[in-house]
């Protein structure tokens, strides 16, 4: 077992009002009653909206934050008291934070990490070469980090986090601000990694779904869903279709889809289409209307969150 938590809770103090000499606080729970198990080899996607407590959970797993209730074990040990010991087996990429030395080439940070994690020289060279190849990062590793683009820097961060071949790889919103191409590149890279356990946090469910085999959803500090990706795919999440057309729509079509609306930019949108009906609607549109552009979207996370919280209320 890599990670096990039981009824894990964390509360923070938030400043309510700042007076001149003292501040008033109120406490609130950033995490509440979170119980989960993560096993060797799991690729876990941790999803939630901003402020849902993802980073808080990650910090407790890493042992840099103390729980206020419940139990947490990382590598079967209390992470707080075994922080440095566990750290040797964990690699972390924080999307908003850099571990690279700003004024130096990324390679120098790698070398420093080699000493910190005590990786033998030969292994180190082989590993860096291989990782750089997989991420297509070979050319810019000798360039000062401040001259790198965001995408290049993130790739370097990944290499820095994997120098010591950690068992557990933790990614806290690593793709924030990256373009589609780089994102795909990183997704492919993660798929190629073997015998690792990965925790990947993001607020984009689709992105996480590409890499992970299991999804955890946090909402306001509560774990509201823990399912495999297959189970999730089977859920009937309604989709919405948006299309544009040069021609006017005929009246009978408009009648056929009463919940169709025309958006401000002139395109049409049909929301809440059940999975079963999706094919039919699509073929009708393409057959009857000369569409210039068409897009199918299912906002799974929003739907799930709305759905799951309603369930709770009932």
């Amino acid at each position, binding site marked *: 077992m890599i990670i096990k938590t039981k009824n894990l809770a964390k509360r923070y103090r938030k400043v309510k009002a700042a007076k001149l000499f003292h501040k008033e606080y109120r406490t609130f729970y950033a995490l509440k009653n979170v119980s989960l198990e993560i096993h060797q080899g799991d690729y876990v996607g941790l999803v939630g909206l901003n402020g849902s407590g993802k980073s808080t959970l990650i910090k407790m797993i890493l042992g840099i934050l103390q729980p206020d209730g419940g139990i947490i074990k990382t590598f079967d040990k209390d992470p707080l008291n075994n922080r440095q010991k566990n750290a040797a087996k964990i690699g972390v990429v*924080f999307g908003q934070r850099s571990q690279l030395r700003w004024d130096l080439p990324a390679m120098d940070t790698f070398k420093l990490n080699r000493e910190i994690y005590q990786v033998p020289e030969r292994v180190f060279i082989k590993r860096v070469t291989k990782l750089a190849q997989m991420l297509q990062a070979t050319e810019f590793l000798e360039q000062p980090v401040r001259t790198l683009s965001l995408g290049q820097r993130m790739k370097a961060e990944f290499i820095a986090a994997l120098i010591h071949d950690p068992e557990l790889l933790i990614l806290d919103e690593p793709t924030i601000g990256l373009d589609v191409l780089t994102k795909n590149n990183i997704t492919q890279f993660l798929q190629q990694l073997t015998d690792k356990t990965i925790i990947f946090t993001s607020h984009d469910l689709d992105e996480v779904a590409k890499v992970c085999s299991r999804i955890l959803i946090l909402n306001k500090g509560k774990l509201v869903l823990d399912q495999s990706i297959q189970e999730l795919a089977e859920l009937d999440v309604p989709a919405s279709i948006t299309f544009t057309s040069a021609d006017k729509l005929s009246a009978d079509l408009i009648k056929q889809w009463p919940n169709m609306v025309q958006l401000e930019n002139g395109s049409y949108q049909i929301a809440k289409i059940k999975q079963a009906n999706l094919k039919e609607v699509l073929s009708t549109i393409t057959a009857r209307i000369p569409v210039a552009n068409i897009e199918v979207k299912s906002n799974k996370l929003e739907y799930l969150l709305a759905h799951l919280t309603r369930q709770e209320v009932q």
Partner: protein
Amino acid sequence: MRYLKLLATYLKINLKAIAIYDLDFYFALAGMIIQNVLNIVALRFIFNIVPRIKGYSFAQLLLTYALATLAFAIFRCFFINALNISDYIHDGRLDTILIKPVNPLFQLVNERVDEDAWGDLIVALLLLIIVDMQLHNPWYITAMFIFISLFTSLIFLGLAVLGNIVALLSNGLANLVETTFDFFDMSKYPLAIYSSTLRLIMTFIFPIGWVASIPQEKIAVEHEWIWLLLIPAACVFFFILIYQLWRVFLQKYQSTGS
């Protein structure tokens, strides 16, 4: 052993980072040397007024000055980043340090060095050697002083860490950290010039007296070799005390997340 190797790596990397700003580096180096020379000239002026201050001759006062500067230069060369701890906490970089399997304070302190402190280090070493020759102190006394300075620099490190902790607990008095520089100013003169209360404070509370004044008196004047052990022991003791405080502080950080 492992930490020594790490130290070497950090040093290599930090020096490389400095070399990137080469021109500025030499400017600063020259500037620091000029300032030191002028400080000494100013001290010399004082001795135009009186031949001795509380029994100290010009050369003896210079020795105190040299010892303090040496210890402070070592602090600035190797430990200067301790002044930035509160920045690390404000922008969350402390997290990236806590997730590494190496002592956090060690990492923090080694992440940056001060580029212009090397000028100070050179001046202080030269000055120490010259003054010792003037005072007819044998070579081994100079060697002892250098040995002791390695430890007394820990006092400044301790004060810097202390300043940071106080600054963080008091929410925003971040500039308090710079007081370390004022403490350095205090350490440049013999304890004998201060009032007895201050002397007590500087010996037992903020141990700046141990940086230069006590080593000079005990080693160069009285030749009591036991102080060769006592002084480093005092420095290490003070540092351990502060280190415990730092650990308490880390625990607080880990429970509140800020």
